[in-house]
């Protein structure tokens, strides 16, 4: 994005936050219905680097924005399988193995109790079950943070007072300057045609 902002008099209508290079255009809406309608038009206009910020998860916003389903369930499944394998290997190694020639501090110990089998699966299921759940849950949360690229401790958008209301009671459509189609004039006019309650330019 190389376009100069201050030089173009036609952009004066859009209030600016900061005075650097343009970072994103913000359009504010007051209701779910309005923002969904607007999001469908942004999607159809072909923008890619954009988002809808809202205080709640909006029902069906994934369709309105044209989002693909997340791969998160596969991450959970993979972690669950690893957890199950870990639980199985842990219980088996601890109580049912003797490997000659390795250090006694990592050596398993064949625990013979009441003449029962050294390893029987049913008696070890509780631990395998718990490690499966534990790994899957940790994987889900880490997967969520990873896919969402969080933690993100600085975000230029938060310089806008208006943007901060997205976590309380306003709905904002943000089109970033990074988008290939972004042009201050045309994108600004396009957003204005969606009839937002306010329009704002955030700079870096």
């Amino acid at each position, binding site marked *: 994005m190389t376009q100069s902002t201050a030089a173009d008099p036609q952009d004066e209508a859009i209030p600016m936050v900061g005075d650097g290079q343009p970072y994103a255009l913000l359009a504010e809406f007051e209701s779910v219905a309005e923002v969904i309608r607007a999001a469908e038009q942004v999607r159809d206009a072909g923008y890619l680097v954009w988002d809808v910020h809202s205080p709640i998860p909006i029902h069906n916003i994934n369709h309105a924005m044209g989002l693909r389903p997340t791969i998160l369930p596969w991450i959970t499944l993979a972690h669950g399988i690893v957890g199950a394998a870990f639980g199985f290997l842990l219980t088996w190694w601890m109580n049912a193995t003797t490997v000659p020639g390795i250090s006694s501090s990592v050596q398993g110990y064949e625990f013979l109790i009441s003449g029962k089998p050294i390893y029987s699966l049913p008696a070890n299921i509780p631990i395998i079950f718990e490690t499966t759940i534990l790994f899957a849950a940790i994987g889900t949360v880490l997967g969520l943070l990873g896919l969402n690229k*969080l933690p993100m401790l600085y975000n230029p958008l938060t310089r806008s007072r208006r943007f901060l209301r997205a976590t309380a009671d306003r709905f904002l459509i943000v089109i970033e300057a990074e988008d290939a189609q972004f042009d201050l004039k045309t994108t600004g006019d396009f957003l204005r045609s969606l009839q937002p309650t306010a329009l704002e330019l955030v700079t870096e």
Partner: protein
Amino acid sequence: MSSLSLPAASEMPTQLDLQPNDPNQRVPLVLGEHDFTTVTDLVTDIPLQRTPTMWYVAMAGALSLLSLLFVTVGYLVTTGVGVWGNNNAVSWGFPIINFVFWVGIGHAGTLISAILFLLRQNWRTGINRFAEAMTIFAVCCAGIFPGLHVGRIWLTYWLAPYPNELAMWPQARSPLLWDVFAVGTYATVSLLFWYMGMIPDLATLRDRAKSRTAQLLYGVFSLGWTGSSRHWTRFERAYLLLAALATPLVLSVHSVVSFDFATSQLPGWHSTIFPPYFVAGAVFGGFAMVLTLSIPAREWFGLRDLITHRHIENMAKIMLGTGMIVAYAYSIEFFTAWYSQQHYEQFVFMNRPLGPFAWAFWTMFICNVVAPQAIWFPWVRKNVWAIFIVAMFVNVGMWFERFVIVVTSLHQDFLPSSWAVFAPTWVDLGMFAGSFGLFFTLFLLFCKFLPMVAIAEVKTVMPQAHADEHPVKFDYQPSSDTPPELRRGHWFT
């Protein structure tokens, strides 16, 4: 609402519930004329501005009990576990009673956050946040007791499986080790679920905080959440996945706790009914604790529009339902003892209601079986403080249930020569009271500094959360001539 006649506005306070038993007619989940702005204000003002006087009073009480915990634990660690009343016959005593009591309480939080979520019970949004917090604090309290009961608490880390120079591993076929894994996993997953669900609300606090310190702290813990819809869609999927993982987990935890008893050969413990019986009892006792906390908290913090009488009544009904399962389990235990024709089993079940601990058995029976029956009556459900009193009975009763299970089975076993009577010492009593201090201190800190109600989730059940094509058909709105005090959550109190 055509064919169903609603009561006139003037009759509303005397009606049990605003709807007939018809899911098409329900009072709204958020009372009063709230929109997203006022709901946000209502919840965020607690951490950011107002502190009710009762908070300071309650905190003073909680801290004094907490200091009692420090004193008794310090005395025990420096002296030895002999300061407890545990003896040769009753080797488990208070530590295990308290452990089972506290772990059980946690179950209601997970039931609300996970199982009611999977069952699409939208009313859970008002209460799930602090029910989950309660879960975590209850598990903290539970963890103290087995940790001390191992004797040399500086060696508690031996419970963990790790390669060591002693060539020593835990015994994976023992229910006691299953317990370590079950409770450890439960604590971790509950904490993750609670924290993950709180991230959007912490961001709300960050964006509304005025002081630099608050902005910084809420900012760090909200991880840069901005309410992005790309984030929200993954967040909702993660929430569903965690709920699906937590549901079997919560059922497993108290099942595993019951295995500690059921896999032993002791009469009164060696019973296949234990896992479902324990899980139902845990939910029963847990809901009593949620009611104990939520009824005063919604008054003190002015949250009656979000935690409405409908929430309280629903919880009371779940408490009654699980209480009936518990009552059934009590009866079937006696039937099994009689039907087994097993001498020792029959002795234990005669000894419980008639022996030296009959007072404990009958306390349990009155509190857990008789008292909850009051919930059947509409005039009891109409009064939150009547529900509160029933919940207090259940709190007491569920502690005595564990006392009866642990002590009566142990104090008179197969050999009359080893029989003994159990009496708690002042350390037992002080540590139990002190664990309430820890619980209430953590809970009050949570109320003051974190969003007590899941703000974003409550907003999703408000009419404003729905676009035109998804109108909310089922929510009953008070008519325009309804007196204002009836619109703000004061219907039945």
